[in-house]
């Protein structure tokens, strides 16, 4: 699946390229379905069945069940689609940022504010 081509490395950053898009297709397709309230409710009512319907693999399903964003990205998830899954659990972007950086939400927010001061 790898092309052998040298990829640009940006620390802490996953570029959503063809390799990621291939790996994550089922996961992202499920997240895309969450534009509909009916689908969001169907997911909450039967997460296992809903993931199976979209053909998520075990890694993807575990990441979704754990609500672990870094694991979802490792499994091919794309930020724009994953955000819709976050929405189901009322996670805002600072919640998601804090989780990924291993910070408290307050510390993450403080970091954002600090970026404006320098």
């Amino acid at each position, binding site marked *: 699946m790898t092309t052998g081509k040298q990829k*640009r490395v*940006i*620390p*802490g*950053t*996953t*570029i*959503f*390229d*063809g390799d990621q*898009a291939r790996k994550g*297709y089922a996961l*992202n*397709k499920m*997240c*895309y379905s*969450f*534009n*509909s*309230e009916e689908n*969001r409710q169907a997911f909450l009512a039967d997460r296992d069945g809903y993931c199976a319907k979209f053909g998520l693999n075990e890694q993807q399903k575990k990441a979704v069940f754990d609500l672990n*964003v*870094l694991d979802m*990205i490792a499994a091919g998830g*794309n*930020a*724009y*689609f*994953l*955000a*819709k899954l976050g*929405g*189901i659990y*009322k996670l*805002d*972007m*600072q919640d*998601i*940022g804090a989780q*990924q*950086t291993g910070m408290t939400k307050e510390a*993450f927010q403080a*970091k*954002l*504010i600090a*970026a*404006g001061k*320098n």
Partner: protein
Amino acid sequence: MARIVGGINVTHVPYIGRAIANNLQQDAYWKPFFDGFPPVRDWLAKVKPDVAVVVYNDHGLNFFLDKMPTFAVGAAPQYQNADEGWGIPTLPPYTGDQDLSWHMIESLIEDEFDITTCQEMLVDHAFTLPLELLWPNQKQCPVRTVPVCVNTVQFPLPTAARCFNFGRAIGKAIESWDSDARVVVIGTGGLSHQLDGQRAGFINKEFDLMFMDKLVTDPLWVTRYSVPDLVELTGTQGVELLNWLTTRGALGGEVTKVHANYHIPISNTASGLLAMEVV
């Protein structure tokens, strides 16, 4: 022939929709952001555009990875907003300008841009909120619209040079449209922000300010950067600045700055606003 009155680049973030719905414009957190807009609204009241061409990126509302266009142009009579899954209010539909849409489509394909044409199209917060910010408290957006969607979601993205040239071709199309309409070009997204990964929360004030400056005086400066360079410098979602660059391309040669604002943060994003007038 139609006339381009200028261009406005503005950040989009879903939570702006919630701030507007909850009337938080003068709240301490939001005030530095919302206070950027009155001078731009004054300018709009003066230049009186009839149509807005809105260059934005879809966030998984209208496009999925089964059919992901590099550049898409709307050609619908009306554009509906819809549920994006985040509980922000859905806004009323926007009126299209199909004459301009089809004129642009003809001109862009003749100029060898391989666009996807959309005769039905849902528009997300990246399209609706900038219009809401520029024309607030309206029952119905007072300008007709043409959505232009740039892929900033799935790599490879179009290069900065391609986006700039796409913008130039859009400008040429508008200016060759047999109409007395006044057109404003609006670019949305950016500036630096990264939602995903261990580098989430990344912001680059120095680059953003340089970018806003260069966009007015020397936009080709941006084309020295590859898309991965731009990700490194501005974050995985900071690359949405390609929409700003496309918009700048549409304005052609020289422009003057009407008004600018920059504030960190709203949500996880460095917010920018830049209104430019064609010289």
